[in-house]
């Protein structure tokens, strides 16, 4: 019984395997970030064993002994120079190597051409997401019209906003597409954290920040808030569903139908135009999808 509880040698070694604790990665750049982590981790592990080895060896070897006097020595400039230069080179290397990844994931000018573009707004305590709808354009926004029931401040006077789809708490995206999120917050700071996609970006009220990712696997993933935003912070859970392009298209047209159906009920006068819009919209979505595929292939061939 007790013996079984004692970990085997390989299990002990496994303790040093930090990488196994990562949640599954489902984004295109995620594994590159994980590899960078792993790279720094192995270097650190090397430095750790080296310095600890020296520390422990010295602590044992140079413990106080009778008749042995310590060595009267003040240090050596060449040694100082060497152990300044080596870490500088090593660390600068890590920095320069990291920078490519940083530019790729975060620089605004490197955000890829979007296949799907949405807006996400964090609020106390939840996330809400806005799709441009069948017309492919977001309706005009007006900060003065931002309320708890209209978090994006969609301007009711603008026709382009009529078909915008707003989803609260659970978002849907296609896989293998560049998803570009315009991120903001309506009250305090939040942080848009998709652990499985290795995405994190603070959401700042009064500011729109572009976040992008490209998912590789169909499934449901969790969205968390990583910046303290009040007592409900821990509970700011959202869900991201990744679908194949075909399923996503279907989802989108269902949603538009729902949305426009509602507006149909409210304003029967506009019913005709909305109905035609709906047809058109499906067409646009398909069209967008095809151009998108070419974009992704282009990107890959680069």
């Amino acid at each position, binding site marked *: 019984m007790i013996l079984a509880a004692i970990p085997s040698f390989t299990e002990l070694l496994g303790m040093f395997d930090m990488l196994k604790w990562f949640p599954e990665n489902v984004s295109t750049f995620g594994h590159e970030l994980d590899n960078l982590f792993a790279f720094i981790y192995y270097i650190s592990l090397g430095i*750790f064993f080296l310095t600890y080895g020296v520390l422990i060896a010295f602590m044992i070897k140079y413990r106080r002994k009778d008749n042995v006097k310590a060595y009267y020595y003040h240090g050596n400039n060449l040694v100082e120079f060497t152990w300044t230069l080596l870490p500088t080179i090593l660390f600068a290397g890590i920095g320069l190597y990291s920078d490519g990844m940083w530019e790729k994931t975060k620089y605004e000018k490197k955000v890829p051409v979007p296949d799907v573009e949405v807006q996400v707004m964090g609020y*106390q305590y939840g996330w809400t997401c806005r799709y441009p709808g069948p017309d492919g354009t977001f309706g005009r926004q007006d900060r003065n019209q931002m309320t708890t029931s209209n978090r994006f401040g969609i301007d009711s006077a603008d026709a382009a906003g009529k078909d915008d789809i707003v989803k609260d708490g659970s978002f849907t995206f296609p896989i293998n597409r560049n998803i570009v999120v315009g991120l903001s917050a309506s009250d305090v700071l939040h942080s848009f954290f998709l652990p499985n996609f290795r995405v994190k970006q603070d959401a700042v009220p009064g500011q729109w920040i572009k976040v992008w990712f490209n998912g590789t696997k169909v499934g449901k993933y969790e969205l968390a808030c990583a910046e303290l935003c009040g007592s409900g912070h821990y509970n700011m859970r959202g869900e991201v569903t990744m679908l194949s392009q075909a399923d996503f298209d279907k989802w989108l047209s269902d949603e538009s139908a729902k949305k426009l159906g509602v507006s149909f009920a409210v304003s029967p006068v506009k019913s005709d135009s909305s109905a035609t819009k709906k047809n058109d919209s499906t067409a646009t979505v398909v069209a967008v999808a095809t151009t998108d595929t070419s974009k992704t292939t282009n990107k890959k061939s680069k």
Partner: protein
Amino acid sequence: MSSPVLVSDTHHDVHTDHGHHEHHKQSFITKYIFSTDHKMVAKQFMLSALFFLLIGGALALLLRWQLAYPGEAVPLIGQFLPELIASDGVIQPGLFIQLTTMHASVMIFFVIIPLAVGLFGNLCIPLMIGTDDMALPFINLLSFWLYFLAGIVAAAGFFVQGGAGASGWTGYPPLSAIGGLGQTLWIVAVFLVGFSSILGGMNYVTTVLNKRAPGMKMFDMPLSVWAIFITSVLMVLGTPVLASAVSMLFFDNVLHTSFFMPDNLTVASPYANGMKHSGGGQPILFQHLFWFYSHPAVYIMILPLMGVVSDVLSTFSRKPIYGYKAMIFAIMAIAFLGFIVWGHHMFQSGMNPLLGTTFMLSTIVIAVPSAIKVFNWLGTIWRGSIRYTTANMMALGFIATFIIGGLSGVFMASAPVDIYIHDTYFIVAHIHYVLFGGSLFGIYAGIYYWFPKLFGKMLNEIWGRRHFFWTFIFFNLTFFPMHILGVGGHMRRIHDPNVYDFLKPFQPWNEFITIMAIILGFSQLILFGNIIYTWIWGPKAPKNPWNANTLEWHAPSPPPHGNFLAPVRVYRSPYEFSHPDRADDFHPQWLAPGEVEIEETTTVSETQNTH
């Protein structure tokens, strides 16, 4: 009250020039409460900060309980918690974020900084540079009492409606700007404690520059003094920026200005009702100002202890410090670079990512002087003759944990790696490896090392070593697994991780960490017991129990008002250990060439000496 103190100071200064001290009988109040004597101020900082350490520790254990056993009533004390914040003894989300906020704020502003600079600044500077007191004794008194007042203001938050500050120790607006009275008190407390730092810092700088004993050049100063000196420069340059940031925050919070508030926030907070900010402010501006101070502040919290550890290591290895000047240049480099790396806390904040690149490069560079210091410490114990006193074990423990804390810093310094680990338990692990494993171990090393000088009694070494082992082992068991949580994506400051499916598998780790933390917390009582026991019954300390070289060991233990019995002169550098031409393995700074000190053979030095 202020004028008699000032008068007695001038009186005092006049007398030091003659080198003898005949003082008026001090009343209880001027001697123990509103004292201007640097040793009394040091004791006041030490005892109040250790008291705050108990409070901060208790807050941490409460929040750890909730993480390990979410939704279960806190045992023993749960029933005493007010119903609103802990229904039936279960910690509610609102209380939880107050706990994380106040735990961190107490530990940083009321424990580590006061101990690192308040205690060691006051204890070390006058004694180690061989003078009678600080240059500005009354400012010194003010510095302590502002700190004390700030502590009361911060603690008062728990007793007002809505509870204490709850925006994290970083207090980011808009959240902190829409908080209730407790949040306002937090802001005021940070402002006051910052002022205490500014006053202390300018006093230390002035003292070091003006009051060194004859013969002591800057490069004859022990590393503790060097480190505290440079730290003081950081405090004087950095803290005013914090003060201005929290002042603006105060205006936003109380007067509804908009330094940090953008237009038209739709805020649900009960305190924000009817709050009309004119808008046009920028939340990220606060973060820049805050970290412009608070990154240097993390070095304020560790540089003094790097100095202490250097002195302790050198003394107990009976060896000169390896690379004395390199150590000083490394401290200076850290201090300078410390002012240009603040953005590494803001990689994901929404600041221009272009700045992320610059801050990543500067941050990576700052790891270099930290590495140099570790190498020089290893060089110091190399071919030494190491004595395992409690102080030295704490110093070695400092190095061991600082290595891990520095390495985890490199992960976060890489901006793209930081994307994932930012705001997770990886950061919490880093903080504790540098601040608990680093700073607090350094503080303990200093306390065990200088307690005999400050209080005139020897702390118990057997209990001291027990304290070390329990702390070291359970420290690592508590905080190392937090790296694992961080890699798992576990966010910091969350009340219940089980909301997320991806965090559910980590529940056993949370439970494990909490149990280890409870043992770690209670192990600290050994220190408190040791201090109280020693204070009352401990053996009297000799003048120089460790056979050290620096000037404080020339003063009696404890030093009288005015410190030295006769004016001191300095003849050599502070680390002349084991010189081949000498029979003794040390050569104090105060001994004239050829002079021998007879009273040096003391009870403790018997066991410390190799003849």
